[in-house]
């Protein structure tokens, strides 16, 4: 039974809202919602999610760009790795069974949840506003104060981005779920900039695999259209709201969601 258009619009809106708040595309919530709650086959859900992720990421990027939360050069450097990973993941997706997809999804989320929870107290901004941010670092204005941050551990950032891209292509995510925690916990990027830069990148990552799903015929038109359409207003609102939530709360919210959804998805595949 195909879910009604109203339910799909609402699903897109809800996942877009939470996704944009956390700097994700929302696919991480949408795929479990579609498969577990609405009974949509996982490949259809993954394809629909990729399209919806493009909508969410692009809409929240418009908000984050205006606020200066997007570090474009950092995004570009990492995007090379994510888009390659996205292309490879999109091609490889047909090689995995349904069970393997569910288990991979679940484990990925749970691991990121643990990392995020363990490091939620760490601040990434440097005390001295005159510090040189370097080529990939930057500045951030929050509550009228100017902060400087430096990018650390480029190989970790690039490796995580490649992995994020591959997971994205396999599982229908934008990869923000991997990038935001890694950038914020290991690479010295403040969570808001990590989230903003992530939204800037994930549209491209998702697009790299979306074309493959589209031509394979996995994109079910009315279903995908309704979800993507719902995701647009949801994510515009979510991106606006993200400004009012404290950085530490964002991290804890993300950790809880990751653990819960990850466990549920892994169970489904066992």
């Amino acid at each position: 039974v195909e879910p009604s258009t109203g339910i799909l619009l609402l699903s897109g809106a809800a996942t877009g809202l939470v996704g944009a708040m956390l700097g994700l595309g929302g696919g991480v919530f949408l795929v479990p919602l579609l498969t577990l709650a609405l009974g949509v086959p996982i490949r259809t859900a993954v394809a629909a999610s990729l399209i919806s992720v493009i909508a969410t990421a692009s809409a929240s990027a418009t908000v984050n760009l205006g606020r200066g939360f997007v570090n474009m050069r950092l995004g570009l450097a990492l995007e090379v790795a994510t888009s390659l990973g996205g292309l490879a993941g999109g091609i490889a997706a047909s090689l995995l069974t349904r069970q393997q997809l569910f288990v991979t999804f679940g484990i990925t989320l749970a691991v990121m949840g643990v990392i995020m929870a363990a490091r939620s107290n760490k601040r990434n901004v440097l005390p001295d506003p005159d510090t040189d941010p370097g080529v990939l670092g930057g500045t951030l204005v929050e509550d009228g104060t100017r902060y400087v941050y430096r990018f650390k551990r480029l190989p970790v950032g690039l490796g995580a981005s490649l992995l994020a891209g591959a997971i994205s292509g396999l599982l229908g995510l934008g990869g923000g779920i991997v990038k935001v925690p890694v950038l914020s916990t290991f690479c010295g990027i403040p969570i808001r900039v990590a989230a903003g830069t992530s939204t800037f990148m994930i549209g491209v990552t998702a697009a790299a695999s979306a074309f493959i799903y589209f031509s394979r015929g996995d994109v079910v038109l009315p279903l995908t259209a309704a979800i993507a359409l719902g995701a647009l207003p949801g994510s515009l609102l979510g991106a606006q709201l993200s400004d009012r939530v404290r950085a530490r709360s964002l991290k804890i919210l993300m950790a809880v969601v990751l653990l819960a959804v990850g466990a549920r998805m892994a169970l489904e595949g066992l």
Partner: protein
Amino acid sequence: VNETASPLDKTVEVVLTCGLAVSALLLVAGLFIGAHSLLQAGILLLMLTPLARVVVVTVGLFHEGDRLFGTVSLCILLVLVGSVIVATRL
């Protein structure tokens, strides 16, 4: 009021907004009258929006004289074009 948004940021914002607005119109119309061709056009346009964004950023960076990151952006564009080529051959 923001000091950190550059002119290129603004251009990218406009490109993304236009892509999203037109595809949203196509999707609304397609769902309303049940036309698959409109839905298909809307989804394709949505998928092309990030591609257009990469084109704008690449041109913008070279225009700003930033050859290093312009080249980086060009590489991303090539991967996306590669993905379209792989997709059309499936």
